[in-house]
């Protein structure tokens, strides 16, 4: 008898297969030139947003806490990797070596920050945690916007005041120019790499959710006191989840920064964190597949519907409110469930009728 796959495993394999099909289809379209230049430009951002959404979903859906610092971690990943790439772009010319290194550096820097921030912050819960992560995101953005880094033969020069304060030698070069941000980053992000990273992100996330650690984290979400009483180390598991979220957000930041020639810290603002939250909420809290789909759809939609672009943010706000009322209000949810059941009843009845007919033969 064939061994049946576990439900979770089957779910994850379906997602991998779907993603693989989409990636191959897009790749064929790109190679045969059947793709609009607009969509082609959106491919890397879609992967970036999908990674961000999946990583935030680990905190929101699995840990059950709200982090609004996603943009901040992305900013750390973006900046640290861009500094690295700018420093080594003359010595390591091969992007296939340089870029993976940049990804690892960006991810690890973000994860380290995530853990440093997480140690004091994760003692908090709920509203407090949300507001503190939001605050940290803003602080990170402000610090990077005030940062000047240059290098010359004497090494790196760092200042928080102004360009002149760096005292660069005449052969010096600016890497980060305060609010003007970072420029000259090699354009290493390609759709292929971004797609591979997205795929790896999904594998990491699914395996995390279905691991012993993931189950421990979910038990904290469902009942913290019960989890604690059976000996689960809450701080440890929270830190692991938070660190993983930060790591993946940092990796997304690397892809993002290497997709543009120049980059400003002001891009990583509160709105970006909210946008990622909208992806997670629309895709379904806790659903990895949903996050990817929501990120892809909501990134493409405004580009195709330019006329409604003005109302885009308003639309996001309405999504957040309506989705929450639909899923969390008992009356509204029961209304949907009842009608859905009716619909499902029709389909399943037909199916079972067909099966009995088959058995009768």
């Amino acid at each position, binding site marked *: 008898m064939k061994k049946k796959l576990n439900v979770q495993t089957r779910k994850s394999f379906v997602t991998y297969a779907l993603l693989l099909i989409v990636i191959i289809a897009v790749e064929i379209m790109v190679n045969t030139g059947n793709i609009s230049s607009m969509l082609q430009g959106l491919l890397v951002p879609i992967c970036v947003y999908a990674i961000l959404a999946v990583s935030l979903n680990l905190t*929101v859906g699995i840990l*059950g*806490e*709200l982090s*609004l610092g996603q943009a901040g971690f992305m900013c750390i990943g973006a900046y640290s990797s861009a500094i690295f790439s700018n420093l080594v772009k003359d010595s390591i010319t091969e992007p296939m070596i340089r870029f993976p290194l940049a990804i690892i550096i960006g991810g690890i820097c973000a994860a380290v920050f995530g853990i440093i921030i997480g140690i*004091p*912050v994760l*003692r*908090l819960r*709920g*509203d*407090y945690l*949300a*507001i*503190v992560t*939001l*605050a*940290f995101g*803003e*602080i990170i953005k*402000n*610090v990077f916007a*005030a940062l000047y880094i240059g290098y010359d033969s004497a090494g790196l020069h760092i200042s*928080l005041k102004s360009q002149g304060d760096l005292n660069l030698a005449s052969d010096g070069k600016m890497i980060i120019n305060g609010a003007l941000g970072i420029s000259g980053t090699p354009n290493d992000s390609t759709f292929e790499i971004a797609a591979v990273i997205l795929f790896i992100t999904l594998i990491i996330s699914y395996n995390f959710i279905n691991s012993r650690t993931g189950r421990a984290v979910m038990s904290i979400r469902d009942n913290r*006191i019960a989890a604690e009483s059976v000996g689960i180390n809450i701080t440890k598991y929270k830190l692991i989840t938070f660190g993983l979220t930060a790591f993946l957000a940092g990796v997304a930041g690397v892809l993002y920064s290497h997709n543009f020639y120049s980059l400003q810290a002001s891009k990583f603002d*509160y709105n970006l964190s*909210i946008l990622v*939250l909208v992806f997670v*909420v629309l895709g379904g*809290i806790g659903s990895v597949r949903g996050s990817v789909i929501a990120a892809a759809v909501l990134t493409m939609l405004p580009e195709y519907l330019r006329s409604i672009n*003005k*109302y885009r*943010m*308003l639309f*996001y*706000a*309405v*999504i*957040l*409110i309506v989705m*929450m*009322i639909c*899923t*969390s*209000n*008992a*009356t*509204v949810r029961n209304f949907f469930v009842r009608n859905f059941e009716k619909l499902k009843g029709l389909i399943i009845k037909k199916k079972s009728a067909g099966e009995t007919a088959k058995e009768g033969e």
Partner: protein
Amino acid sequence: MAFLENLINGISLGSIYAVIALGYTLVYGIAKMLNFAHGDVIMVGGYVVFNAIVKANLNPWVSVALAVVACTVLGITIEKVAYKPLRKASSLSVLITAIGVSYFLQNMALLVFGEKPVTFTSVIDIPKISLFDGKVVIKGETTAAIIASILIVIGLSLFVNHTQKGRAMLAVSEDKDAAQLMGINVNSTISLTFAIGSGLAAIAGVLLCSSYPILSNTTGAMPGIKAFVAAVLGGIGSIPGAMIGGITIGVIEILGRAYISPQLADAIVFAVLILVLMVKPTGILGKKINEKV
């Protein structure tokens, strides 16, 4: 002398934070939720006053009254539409909804009032006070903010402790179900709380925009968050605590801006929040709540 001036400015800013923090602390005490949109109600109040004065040429006092009414209605509407259906939902859903409402108000304001920040003209006509032969000048706005916040805190304390409606609020914050059994209408009490909080937000908006006259759709966001920090520092649910917390945060922010680093002033305020939550999570005047299994 410069230090004294900074200190007075800090107290003034802190008084504004205190008025905002009262809104957070009331709502948090009674509905057990962080009303993320509270800061944006401030911004709406600011815009109502601005438009009433500049576009409709109304008297400043009438404009302020109009803003209070508008924000009160807005607060009740937000509560009825977005928060009431989620009374029994998990705190995560409520929090996401509150963020949605905040984002909605910000972007609605962007569409209705335009993208360009406007310059707010102060509605306060209190003369300047000069001390020490003009070495220290206290602006009218500063005096107004301090006096207004003191009056509000006293008034609100009297209302909560000495009227029937106020005591109903205390009862609901203590135990919703028990309050209901005693014949208190919990829904109308929560609405009343939102109404008071939002009305105060309008006044805070006027004070804030008079002191810091640039008004845009995100004006309320940062002061809102800092006022929440103030409410936590003072002890959430406590009215005098909001005043103490607000003034502490205001002074820390202004002194930090003047003597440490202008860019890091916000960071210092948030560091205070983390410190408070680690050392004494209930805040200065907060009550300890035991967690039940």
